[in-house]
């Protein structure tokens, strides 16, 4: 299987026939494998350049959510008096998961526009920017897990084996985010105003998701509708193992997986079917 893939990749790099290409999605996936080092390089670049001139450097990746958490904890537990147990952990994990999604999708769009100049000159698989955005967010997420666990231990939250459930949770979140990122990348090529509009939508979406507030402030009649929000499901999957040491039920897993698969499928099919068009548009 692996050797067959290697053979295919080898052939692809030395022979190109515009009339005899695989399905756009397959073609894009093969190209991505061929250009896997580019993904790594792009991830490294965005992590390195983000804090390049700052003194603390990559430490900001961990400090940022930590400081936000302190501010939000002060504001919400003192001013609004949410009575959630371990509120700092609740809000920190929520912010982390949300940033993972919002960073992936927003920077995928930004990278796609940045990469436009390159796509015009040299061949690179176009999905590389969305995949790199996902990679960057994943690295950031993993890095900020460190302060999360430190604070959790500090606050006396006991860590269970259920924490392993966070791994598939991140995987599902990643699939969902990548799908949305690909859809947005397609859209932004055609309409530049997707970028600001999406910013507004993200803010709205964030307030519709229980990130900084507990679920119990939602009126019970709205709850069924509220729970259809894919980000709510993803958040549950990510947060429950840490907060309560339990892995959420199959209803939540099932729906989240459906969302993730649907998003990734729609995203990659639409993105790939349009990918020949981008060069003309960017």
């Amino acid at each position, binding site marked *: 299987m692996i050797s067959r893939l290697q053979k295919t990749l080898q052939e692809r790099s030395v022979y190109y026939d515009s009339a005899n290409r695989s399905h756009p999605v397959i073609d894009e996936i093969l190209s991505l494998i061929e250009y896997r080092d580019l993904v790594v390089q792009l991830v*490294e670049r965005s992590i390195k350049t983000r804090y390049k001139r700052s003194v603390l450097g990559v430490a900001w990746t961990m400090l940022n959510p930590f400081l936000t958490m302190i501010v939000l904890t002060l504001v919400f537990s003192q001013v609004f008096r949410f009575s959630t147990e371990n509120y700092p952990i609740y809000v920190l994990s929520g912010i982390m998961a949300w940033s993972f999604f919002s960073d992936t999708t927003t920077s995928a769009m930004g990278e796609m526009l940045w990469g436009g100049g390159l796509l015009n000159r040299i061949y690179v698989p176009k999905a590389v920017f969305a995949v790199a955005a996902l990679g960057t967010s994943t690295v950031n997420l993993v890095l900020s897990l460190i302060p999360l666990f430190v604070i959790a231990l500090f606050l006396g939250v006991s860590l269970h084996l259920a924490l392993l459930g966070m791994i598939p949770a991140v995987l599902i979140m990643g699939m969902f985010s990548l799908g949305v990122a690909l859809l947005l990348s397609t859209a932004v090529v055609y*309409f530049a105003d997707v970028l600001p509009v999406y910013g507004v939508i993200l803010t709205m979406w964030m307030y519709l998701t229980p990130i900084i507030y507990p679920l119990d402030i939602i009126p019970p009649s709205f709850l069924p509708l509220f729970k259809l929000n894919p980000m709510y499901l993803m958040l549950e999957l990510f947060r429950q193992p840490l907060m309560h040491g339990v892995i959420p039920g199959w209803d939540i897993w099932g729906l989240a997986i459906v969302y993730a698969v649907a998003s990734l499928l729609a995203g990659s099919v639409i993105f790939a079917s349009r990918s020949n068009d981008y060069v003309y548009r960017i």
Partner: protein
Amino acid sequence: MTPPVVTFENVAVRYRVPRESVSGIKEYAIRWAQRKLAYEDFWALKDVSFAIQRGEIFGVIGRNGSGKSTLLKVVARVLTPTRGRVVLRGKVAPLLELGAGFHPELTGRENVFLNSALLGRTKSEVRELLPEIASFAEIGEFMDAPLRTYSTGMVARLGFAVATAVRPEILLVDEVLSVGDAPFQQKCLDRMYSFQEQGTTIIMVSHSMATIDSFCSRAMWLSKGELLALGNTQEVIRQYIEMEKPKEAEPAAASAVEISPPPAEKRIATAEPVIDLEKQRAALPRVHCIYPADPIISVRHGTVSLWLRFDPQKPPHTAILFHSDDSRYVIYTTVDESVPVRPLRSLTARAGGNRRVMETYFGRSRFPEVEVYFDGQQQPGVPLSYGEWHMITMTWEGFPDGVMRLYINAEQVGETAYDRRYDNNYRLAESLAVGVRPPQWVGELVQKDDGTVEDLRPQATLSVLDGGQELKNVCVYRQCLSPDEIKELYESERAALLAEIA
């Protein structure tokens, strides 16, 4: 026969341009609902078919908007043809805009990795290539400094070094050879030619006909996306020049290419040579004149002979046989600027000398030239005295392995062989040889970005200028005279000269 490296079969590329600009989602939605989304189809390439063989240097010419860049983009796999079929055998390396994708905040080293990854190389490959890239780009200790601290030249050098770190099967070159200083250009060119020798196919796009003419063995001419000519470079360029010239009779000419002629002060009077068919010789009696070179001279072999009398009172810096457009001397003298009295320092015979092409691409040192230094200046010194007539003779004996010789008073004072490395199937040397242009020379018809063409072609094919020193018996021979023949010539002409003076 091996299959061609690049094959285009009826390739067409369509750009869809919205008739009116629809920039917003709302507007788009309204128009979509109203079924009013109108597109203008623009075919950047129309049914273009050709094949390029392994190791060819292939030129693409055409005006702006003719489809040249689109064609390169199709080969670079940036664009997929709307119709038709493209087959590429081998890895393509685009040398389009060097340093595209560099990030100013990253160090040179980090940028090498990023840029190499953009070209599809793996990290382990790059790690091996890194020392070679760093030394080729001459970046030195700057390798670990952020790119924003680099000079433009350094960025371009690094870009070239990265792009060409691995020999590609197909190399795309788009007006990028003006990178850095002359020695670096020389290095770039060396590398390109060594790639070609190893079988790399090079596709080159340039506005300069001279560049295409110098490098490419075959060329194609695109106009409005259509292939108008394909084949021998000189033939294609000739057709291009003919067609793209404005036709005065037609009113539509206003929109055609405008060719601006050289300024009047650069024009020189013309004269006819006195041809002696028996001796295969043409005498050029008038100084400060242009002669048609074609019947006179052969670029493959020949002799230039003349008599010079050096006068300390006259301008010492003098050019004798000379091409009018950009100083292609055949024989000239230079002065020693370091001494106040400025004595004659050297006498040089040079083959070729299209300064624009040669200097830009090869650096000064590569001219086939013979230089002699006057006594006391430098070794080897040749004793020449003021006030006396000297016969200066230069011969060249053909391509590809011709040797150029310089004689003073029938004594050989120097010789040099052509440097073949930069000859593209010897055509470059042939075109530029010995300061004589081939009959249909079309170089330096330079197309500018606004679509107009500046006529930088020489008005002359061969001209004689004396620069101040006294000059007599300027003759051009179609044959490369042997030392004995030169001796004979020297004796007879000397006798005639002495008689004349007496």
